């Protein structure tokens, strides 16, 4: 076994870390990824996890709920430990202060691996990104990284249990706000990705004719006030439209694959989204389907690929978690992941090639 998970439901942070350390005690660890409820003090959890595993790279973030093998949890800390057969090499760095566009971290990766980001083979290296979920900077980072390297980055936006006050990423024994943790991993095993969003595409199209992409606002769809056009597409009134957001988001659909953009609220005639939308984009209205069935199918397809699955890191949108909770299906969703070591969290956004909403983006290690 090259990958092991651990979790703790204890409430005292000292006991939580001791509990996780005890579960991983006989494991020869190279890297730990951990996700912690926002109930825990960010600076303390970061410091204590680093101190508990001093010879090991550790990184993680705060969450809106945690996922571990077979379970969806809250108020917990979950961790995945990789040995050196699972991860041959890794480097973790932090983009501090996302208001400044600086990818100094890439210099650190290039020094560590002895090759440029352009040279890195996307079949040999994979990137993980954990980012302040309230920064609104996910698109900028993913876009810029996508220009600079073919290495695929996957990840999630840190959460804070729906308080929307402050989220944190952890690395080097510290916690950071307005920051992103970037990790480049060189797995010793093959790896792949699952990106699943439980929606079908409807025929209604919404062309973004006016938008403020930096504020994630759409002012007009189809040359009409955005709220009016959306309500018309859904077949309801503007007043009722927010009740349809969760089940009828919109998507940028490319070759059958939707990148979901979830509406957040209506402000006058404008619509605010959880994801940036560019002028000129043609978006499709989406309709929700069965999260359990579609996730189950996505995992079954992944399991059929050669090599089996030795570990899953699941970045699962909080909106999916909320819907599962409303339908009392959270336990069923957790059970989809009982066959393989799994860790993950409920995110304020998901990253795979770009930024998306209402998606589960998963790194699959074979």
């Amino acid at each position, binding site marked *: 076994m090259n990958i092991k998970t651990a979790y703790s439901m204890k409430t005292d942070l000292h006991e939580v870390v001791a509990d996780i350390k005890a579960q991983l005690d006989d494991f020869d660890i190279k890297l730990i990824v951990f996700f912690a409820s926002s109930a825990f003090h960010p600076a303390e959890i970061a410091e204590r996890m680093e101190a508990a595993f001093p010879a090991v790279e550790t990184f993680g973030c705060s969450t809106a709920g945690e996922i571990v093998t077979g379970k969806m949890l809250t108020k917990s800390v979950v961790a995945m430990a990789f040995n050196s057969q699972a991860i041959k090499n890794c480097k973790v760095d932090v983009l501090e202060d996302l208001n400044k566009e600086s990818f100094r971290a890439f210099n650190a990766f290039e020094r560590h691996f002895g090759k440029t980001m352009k040279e890195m083979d996307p079949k040999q290296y994979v990137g993980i990104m954990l980012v302040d979920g309230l920064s609104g900077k996910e698109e900028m980072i993913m876009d810029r990284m996508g220009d600079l390297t073919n290495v695929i980055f996957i990840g999630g936006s840190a959460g804070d249990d729906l308080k929307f006050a402050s989220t944190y990423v952890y690395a080097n024994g510290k916690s950071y706000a307005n920051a992103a943790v970037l990790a480049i991993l060189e797995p010793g095993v093959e790896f792949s990705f699952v990106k699943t969003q439980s929606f079908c595409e409807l025929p209604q199209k919404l062309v973004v004719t006016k938008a403020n992409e930096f504020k994630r606002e759409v002012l007009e769809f189809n040359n009409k006030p955005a709220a009016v056009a959306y309500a018309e597409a859904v077949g309801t009134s503007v007043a009722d439209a927010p009740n349809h957001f969760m089940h009828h988001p919109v998507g940028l659909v*490319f*070759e059958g694959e939707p990148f979901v953009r979830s509406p957040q609220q209506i402000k006058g005639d404008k619509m605010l989204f959880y994801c940036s939308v560019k002028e000129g984009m*043609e978006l499709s209205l989406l309709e929700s389907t069965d999260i359990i069935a579609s996730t189950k199918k996505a995992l079954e397809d992944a399991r059929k690929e050669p090599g089996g699955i030795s570990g899953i890191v699941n970045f699962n949108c909080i909106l999916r978690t909320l819907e599962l909770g409303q339908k009392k299906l959270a336990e069923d969703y957790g059970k989809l992941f009982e066959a393989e070591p799994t860790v993950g969290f409920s995110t304020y956004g998901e990253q795979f*090639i770009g930024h998306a909403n209402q998606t589960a983006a998963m790194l699959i290690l074979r």
Partner: protein
Amino acid sequence: MAGKIKQMIDTIISQRAKDNAMLAGIIKTKLMLKGIDPNKFTPQSADDLAIISKLEALMKEL
């Protein structure tokens, strides 16, 4: 000159993907997320300065 966008898109894909079909798909997706649908442009497509500008910035990274 019509068709410049298609030409630039094809150059970016061929230089970044180097015959790797999976990588070509990823690069096309990245273009789509930038607001440039690579499947919509033909050799006859009119030039759009805003799109050309975005593609020029990307080509500088090659």
